[in-house]
């Protein structure tokens, strides 16, 4: 192979501009996912079947279809079906946020249900009311337990955000594609793009690992 690498052709400025957009999408999607995911978790645990079932279906819909299909569907169908026209970034946030909301709802549900029954019994024995038990025992314990999963889901959404390039949002992936076409240097460009995604994600995965190890120590 006599290919000569030329990384000078890869100008960082547009890529960093793209990274900024990707980070905006990620942070906004995470706000939606963390806040509304919790509400959704409560709905899918509702004692009333009529409430529970539609929301369970919603969660499963997002878990069982490719994120790219969800993004494209929201981009093209929402404006046509509901006559709602939003700017692309908002649409991207909506698509990624709803996807993350579904996955986070599952994370919350799992950790709420994993709170040991003995903890609840202890709360009853101490005379706490059902609401007090939920607010002071179940939620704090469950939220702590779900932090590593929420972080993992959050970083997965950062990577999934690359998919919005397909609907012309100028994120890191989009800028990379443009640059690669302009410079005829796809190898160098996409290598740098990959390294940027890695540089952001890797520290977060390390933090997750640290939290999980610490948690294991704490729980035992």
């Amino acid at each position, binding site marked *: 192979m006599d290919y000569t690498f030329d990384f000078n052709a890869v100008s960082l400025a547009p890529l960093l501009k793209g990274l900024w957009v990707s980070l905006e999408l990620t942070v906004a999607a995470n706000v939606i996912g963390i806040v509304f995911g919790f509400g959704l978790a409560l709905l899918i645990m509702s004692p009333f079947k009529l409430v529970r079932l539609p929301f369970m279906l919603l969660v499963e819909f997002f878990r069982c279809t490719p994120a790219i299909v969800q993004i494209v569907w929201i981009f093209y169908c929402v404006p046509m079906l509901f006559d709602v026209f939003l700017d692309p970034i908002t649409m991207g946030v909506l698509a990624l946020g709803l996807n993350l909301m579904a996955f986070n709802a599952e994370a919350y549900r799992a950790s709420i249900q994993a709170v*040991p029954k*003995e*903890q609840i*019994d*202890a709360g*009853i*024995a*101490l*005379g*706490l009311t059902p609401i*007090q038990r939920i607010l*002071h*025992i179940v939620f*704090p*314990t469950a939220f*702590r337990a779900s932090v590593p999963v929420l972080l993992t889901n959050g970083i997965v959404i950062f990577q999934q955000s690359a998919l919005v390039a397909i609907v012309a949002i100028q994120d890191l992936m989009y800028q990379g594609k443009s640059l690669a076409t302009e410079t005829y240097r796809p190898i160098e460009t996409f290598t740098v793009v990959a390294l940027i995604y890695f540089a952001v994600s890797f520290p977060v995965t390390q933090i997750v690992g640290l939290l999980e190890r610490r948690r294991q*120590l*704490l*729980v*035992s």
Partner: protein
Amino acid sequence: MIMSFSLPLVKMQSLHKSYADGAIQVLKGIDIEMKPGERVVVIGPSGGGKSTLLRVMMGLEKIDSGSVTFDGKPYISSGSSESKTVIDMSVRRSIGMVFQHYTLFPHLNVLQNLILAPCKVRGEAKSKAQDRAQTLLERFGLGAKAKAYPAQLSGGQKQRVAIARALMLDPKLMLFDEVTSALDPELVGEVEQVILQLAAQNMPMMIVTHDMWFARNIASRVIFCAGGVVVEDGPPEQVLGSPKEERTKEFIDRVFHINQ
């Protein structure tokens, strides 16, 4: 003792309890009267209904039929419909319980574990509750652990904190459900010492334990429970020393054999 002539502290009448729609009968008519100041140790084989009895007393389990009065007041009764058990919440608040598995709240430190219920349930001022908690912890040799989290404590320390937490609500009766069963053997003593300390102050208690040494030391009365009924009931020297019933004798022989 004057108190022994007063009203019974606890009066259980014909308690019945089953699981799986009546398929598994755990309590088949339990009648126990407990006087103030008594320390009742309940022994018996696993599945004999001992823990269920304590859980019913704490209001954690529904009953099929029967009733419990506490300090002369109606406490638990099987309501009109079959699946309804009526529990008087204000009576329940005068009973404290410690469980087999550590049930400290892991996200709160020792002091916060102790003051949660007094502050939330009784609306006690935080500073006042903290002072009481600190005093109680000192008494149990845990003064230095107030700021520690449950995960940083040994099993024995956790159980002592759990006992202190229950005492924060000034219970009139303490229930101990196999509180040393999950502990390493060398940690059992420190927890039993704390319970003996309470016994010395005449705290009424019901204790489920497999530790016969402890049972003999703490009980003012021993109840042998098997197959969902009270088989034998009497002073510790009798039930543990020279039981009248054949089933009790068999059980005691087996347990002491294992212990040796």
